[in-house]
């Protein structure tokens, strides 16, 4: 199957980016170097093309109920302009995906924004390559529950850029007609960027302050070109993410190869057990009884770099887990990683071993995030 391409594929290519396949998309992995891109985001600001992320739009009289019953967090807490991190779970409480749900201004039947009138409207962002299956899931359940809501997959209609770093607010504010600096973390609004209507949210995935802009596909190149800062690829996004202790779908959780619940993955805060949703009863039982394994952060004490799939052992060399994510942290200049281990090994300070190409390397469980984050 041919890879999907982001609207800026040509522009990135001219800029000298290297590309990688990610979730069925041909995405820039590196522009200059992961180290310099990572540093730009930690110290100043960088911009990422994350147009491979899905965009599902839900509106109608029962939109809130549909969202509530298919995501684990409490959607009713969202006012217009709020967003929340949530998971999508199956009947067993296993994470299918993680997502950010935005409450957009209400919409009328013809799609016009109508803050007072109109129907509740949501946009949520599934991970790359899962937009179609997620869209189908929403339609299937909507029909089964006989709810009145329109569900549109708008992944191909909108590009998404992430402007991240301590200088992000100033940079984004410079290009928007309306001030966006008043937004708190996880707040969002429509704003005009050189005449282009964009949804701008103070969210991101790097541990830094930052904004994500959802931009009409046809205007992507124009909006991108307004940001005079370091372009960054998925390589830097990975290293920034691990330092911040944030999960990567398909790696830190994967419904097929490594099914995990939000409690195991350390994101139990996304689960609102007082609401009704698919997987709720299973999660309530797990919450009551506790988990057997959980995701921990660790630092390698010996020389080496932990990588996805490497075994984690106890000090008796018994395999107790697997590295889900690992890297040499550019900020800490230390090898760090994430992996699932039995809870008795999860306490920070616990000594473990990671098997790096056949050799046991000493590691120590650390508190995550590994760095200070916003």
């Amino acid at each position, binding site marked *: 199957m041919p890879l999907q391409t982001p609207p800026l594929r040509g522009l990135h290519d001219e800029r000298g980016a290297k590309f990688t396949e990610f979730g069925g998309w041909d995405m820039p*992995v*590196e522009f200059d*170097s*992961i180290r310099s891109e990572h540093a730009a985001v930690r110290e100043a600001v960088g911009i990422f093309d994350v147009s491979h992320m899905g965009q599902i739009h839900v509106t109608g009289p029962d939109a809130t109920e549909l969202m509530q019953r298919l995501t684990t967090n409490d959607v009713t807490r969202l006012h217009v302009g709020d967003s929340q991190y949530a998971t999508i779970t199956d009947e067993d409480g296993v994470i299918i995906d993680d997502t950010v749900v935005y409450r957009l201004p209400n919409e009328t039947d013809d799609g016009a924004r109508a803050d007072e009138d109109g129907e509740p409207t949501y946009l949520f962002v599934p991970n790359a390559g899962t937009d179609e299956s997620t869209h189908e899931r929403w339609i299937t359940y909507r029909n089964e529950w006989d709810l009145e809501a329109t569900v549109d997959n708008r992944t191909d209609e909108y590009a998404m850029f992430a402007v991240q770093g301590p200088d992000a607010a100033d940079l984004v504010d410079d290009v928007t007609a309306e001030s966006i600096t008043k937004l708190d973390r996880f707040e969002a609004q429509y704003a005009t960027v050189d005449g282009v209507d964009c949804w701008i949210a103070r969210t991101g995935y790097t541990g830094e302050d930052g904004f994500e802009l959802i931009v009409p596909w046809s205007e992507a190149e124009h909006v991108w070109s307004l940001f005079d800062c370091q372009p960054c690829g998925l390589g830097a996004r990975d290293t920034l993410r691990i330092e911040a202790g944030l999960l990567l779908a398909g790696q830190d959780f994967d419904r097929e190869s490594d099914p995990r619940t939000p409690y195991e993955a350390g994101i139990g805060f996304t689960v609102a057990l007082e609401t009704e949703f698919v997987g709720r009863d299973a999660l309530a039982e797990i919450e009551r009884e506790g988990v057997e394994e959980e995701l921990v952060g660790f630092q390698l004490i010996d020389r080496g*770099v932990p*990588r996805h799939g490497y075994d984690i052992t106890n000090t008796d060399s018994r395999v107790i887990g697997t590295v889900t994510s690992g890297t*040499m942290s550019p900020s800490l200049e230390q090898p760090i990683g994430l992996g699932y281990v039995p809870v008795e090994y999860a306490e920070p300070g616990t000594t473990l071993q990671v098997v790096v*190409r056949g050799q046991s390397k000493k590691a120590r469980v650390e508190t995550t995030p590994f760095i200070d984050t916003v």
Partner: protein
Amino acid sequence: MSFDVPDDRRYLESHEWALEDDGTVRVGITDFAQDELGDVVFVELPDEGDALTQEEEFGVVESIKAVSDLYAPVSGEVTAVNEDLFDAPELVNDDPFGDGWMLEIDADDASELDELLSADEYEDQIA
């Protein structure tokens, strides 16, 4: 993008270079290889005195994003290891044909180098 390919040395298809001087063969990875790998963060090398066989693995170079095995250009004994790389692996990126060298081998038979690619042949490979 064009890469340096000095014509004073020989090359392996796996992107190591070999520079011979009076029976001693200095080894590193090419400009193309370091660019493909990206930021090098770790190099694992043999010890002095270890015996290597041509085309066998002798170590590993790791960047932030990838791991790559290293292959010996000739058979012989390791006579020097660039220990600067243990504290400053970025030398491989900064100066792959110079300060980023990895080890020196006292070649059993320097004519093994004739089996390797010339600069022109290697340039064709990475074109």
